[in-house]
């Protein structure tokens, strides 16, 4: 008991110390920021009107649940791709086509917390085909297609609490990974006391197979591991391409006041998983089937409604029950947060957020340690390797709270440091800090163009920071999160830009624009419209009643709807407007909104069909109109629906163009 108390006290003092340091950092004057001469900086980010940026950058939206797209180096905001949250701007999550994407085993979930976007890779380099992103809260992974910049698939992860160590891909996009931030009872819906944590709770590391042609995901297996918090993950590359590394904290197995209780151990672990071997074990029948309900939501064909497939059962590898070793623990100081692998695949860098050094493990030394049997203990069958046998170096004096590292491919690593709010650049040869620069303020992730790949471009670095404070014109007690753009092409890092973003830009990825922009779709070709309620022959525009369900097969072009006068709708009807945009010109968008609709407008891209549901609850005349400013006669693009009483015998009629 005394022991516990004293530990608690020590923890509280430690916590208080950090708060004091953090307070000093926050309240301290930002000092002189190091940036290029203003003119030089302006020139480096200047992209002339009408010209295109060199890079697409994808910033996660954090608690917005979305993914925003930016051009670099200008920091032009390009668009928000809605992913895990409803978006009234586009009708995403409101239209009948997109609603099924939000189905989960917990019901319809219209929001989540999206953290780590990751672009699909071929041979360790970003290939620009898809981008994946994780949902933390109700664990899911989404796949966004980079031809249409639309969310095409959302896969729920069962038996997982907080999918934070996600959605990183292996170097040929064989797998995208998921991981439990919160361990929970693996057996689903288990109702047990919380203090049975060590006995009943387990972690789950998910391996989701990605179809190489379609990108479609499939939850192939989960590894059931000791009940720690699995925080972040990264795949190896080159020689380490068959491995994935996860950080763990809370090896103390605390379930309350983790701030203190999960900060006691000097070292936690990086879990090194040989995914190829794990997949072989599964293929050879070493896996078991465990219950696990989850939803898999995706599109089939070119257009139409997302399909929600309800699944049950997942293949698991339980380290307690498998004799062969395919996962190893690498002791790492101290509650490591990030884990990042350098471009050669040799160095595995841990971000010990409470550590005073940045520990760097060597992949080749790790293999040697495994061969030499340098195992200090086994936890639930998992060999713990000797720290001295795997460590290649410790970077001294990295600042307070090192978190995440990316690389420039020229022999340097760049680590974000949260508490002291800076970025440190250090040498992968000497493990010494060679440069440091302030971040405004409290940096989380950083991103270098190509900085997590085999061949970084390393032109620019973006710091993703958590508070804006005084950086821009003030906008109230809660302000948007900032990002900073740095030039890292020279020996010293230089600040170029500081700009507010959307939601919480938690992590970001960037890719050379030429790898994406020529593939981007300009229209949905009408001939390929396979939506079951599409209007492919204009003369087929019509209204159909089946009981209380009324379907309007509607077309739009500049500047009218067809039909635009509808009568015979009754109170109590459920009306579906299936609107096909009959335009075939790039960026000519039409939308529809009707008075009293209890959802949002729907935007429809050229050649696309989208559906708005409407349940009129009062009689009267309801105007509807095009919400997208589409032409000079946009204000003329409107229509009327007459709604009669539930028992009315007004016949169902529709027309266009006959006054």
């Amino acid at each position: 008991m005394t022991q516990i108390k004293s530990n608690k006290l020590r923890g509280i003092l430690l916590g208080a110390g950090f708060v004091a340091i953090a307070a000093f950092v926050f309240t301290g004057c930002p000092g002189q920021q190091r940036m290029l001469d203003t003119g030089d900086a302006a020139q480096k980010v200047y992209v002339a009107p009408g010209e295109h940026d060199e890079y697409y950058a994808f910033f996660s939206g954090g608690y917005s649940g979305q993914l925003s797209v930016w051009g670099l180096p200008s920091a032009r905001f390009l668009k928000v791709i809605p992913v895990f949250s409803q978006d009234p701007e586009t009708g995403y999550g409101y239209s009948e086509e997109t609603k099924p994407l939000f189905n989960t085993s917990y019901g319809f979930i219209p929001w989540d917390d999206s953290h780590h976007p990751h672009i699909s890779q071929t041979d360790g380099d970003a290939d620009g085909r898809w981008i994946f992103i994780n949902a933390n809260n109700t664990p899911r992974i989404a796949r966004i297609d980079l031809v249409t910049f639309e969310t095409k698939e959302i896969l729920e992860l069962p038996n997982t609490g907080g999918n934070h160590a996600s959605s990183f891909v292996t170097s040929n996009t064989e797998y995208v990974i998921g991981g439990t931030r919160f361990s929970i009872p693996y057996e689903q819906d288990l109702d047990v006391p919380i203090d049975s944590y060590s006995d009943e709770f387990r972690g789950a590391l998910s391996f989701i197979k990605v179809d190489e042609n379609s990108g479609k995901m499939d939850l192939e297996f989960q590894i059931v591991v000791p009940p720690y918090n699995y925080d972040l993950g990264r795949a190896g590359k080159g020689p380490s391409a068959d491995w994935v590394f996860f950080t763990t904290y809370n090896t103390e197995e605390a379930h309350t006041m983790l701030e203190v209780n999960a900060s006691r151990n000097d070292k936690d672990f990086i879990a090194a998983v040989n995914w190829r071997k794990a997949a072989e074990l599964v293929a050879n029948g070493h896996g078991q089937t465990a219950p696990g309900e989850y939803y898999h939501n995706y599109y089939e064909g070119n257009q139409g409604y997302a399909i929600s497939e309800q699944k049950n059962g997942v293949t698991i590898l339980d380290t307690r029950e498998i004799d062969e070793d395919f996962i190893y623990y690498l002791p790492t100081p101290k509650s490591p947060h990030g884990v990042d692998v350098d471009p050669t695949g040799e160095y595995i860098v841990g971000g010990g957020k409470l550590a005073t050094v940045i520990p760097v493990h060597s992949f080749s030394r790790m293999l040697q340690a495994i061969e030499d049997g340098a195992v200090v203990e086994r936890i639930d069958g998992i060999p713990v390797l000797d720290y001295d046998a795997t460590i290649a170096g410790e970077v001294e004096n990295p600042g307070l709270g090192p978190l995440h590292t990316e690389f420039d491919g020229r022999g340097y690593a760049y680590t974000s440091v949260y508490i002291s709010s800076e970025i440190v650049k250090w040498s992968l040869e000497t493990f010494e800090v060679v440069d440091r620069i302030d971040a405004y303020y409290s940096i989380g992730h950083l991103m270098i163009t190509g900085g997590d790949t085999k061949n970084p471009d390393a032109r620019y670095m973006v710091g993703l920071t958590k508070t804006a404070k005084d950086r821009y014109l003030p906008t109230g007690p809660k302000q948007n999160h900032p990002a900073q753009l740095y030039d890292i092409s020279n020996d010293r890092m230089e600040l170029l830009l500081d700009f507010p973003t959307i939601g919480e830009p938690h992590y970001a990825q960037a890719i050379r624009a030429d790898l994406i922009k020529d593939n981007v779709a300009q229209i949905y070709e009408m001939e390929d419209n396979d939506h079951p309620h599409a209007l492919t022959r204009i003369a087929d525009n019509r209204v159909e009643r089946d009981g209380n369900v009324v379907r309007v097969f509607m077309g739009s072009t500049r500047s009218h709807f067809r039909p635009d006068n509808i009568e015979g709708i009754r109170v109590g009807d459920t009306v579906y407007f299936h609107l096909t945009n009959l335009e075939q010109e790039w960026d000519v968008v039409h939308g529809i909104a009707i008075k009293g609709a209890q959802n949002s407008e729907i935007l429809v891209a050229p050649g696309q069909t989208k559906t708005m549901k409407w349940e009129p609850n009062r009689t009267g005349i309801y105007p509807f109109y095009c919400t997208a400013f589409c032409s000079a006669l946009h204000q003329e693009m409107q229509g009327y629906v007459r709604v009669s009483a539930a028992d009315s015998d007004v016949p169902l009629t529709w027309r266009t163009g006959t006054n």
Partner: protein
Amino acid sequence: MKLITTISISIVLLLTIQACGDDETTDRRADVQQEEGLTDFELEHGIGPITERIEIDEEIDQELLTKGRDIYEMKCEMCHNMEGRMVGPELGNVLDRRSPEFVMNFILNPGRMAQDHPEGQKMLREYMTVMPFQNVKEDEARAIVEYLRYYAEHN
């Protein structure tokens, strides 16, 4: 130092602006020439990818007709009637007024036709709207012409 920077930025900017300006001027000049000097072919048959007379058999090509009707019903009928004006002109008798090449160029290049062709400009004034490009390919425009021929013959 600052002065030098400012001057060099100004020069760079000047060069950039100059470069862009040049492009634009060239474009416009080309347009002006076009406007003033459309070829006889363009005046009669429109501006666009069809630059010479096409051969059309007297007999209706059934395959082409079906294809043309499908495209017409998918991409044209929102704005055109065969009989009577709607958003755009009636099309049942369009081949009495225009050559097949003119119709094809109008389908394939509606923006330029409205802007630069005297007939297109006249129609823009009359109908108050620019016909949208409907992603119709050259062979599809030819098929639409076949359907228009068929319609004219049978109505």
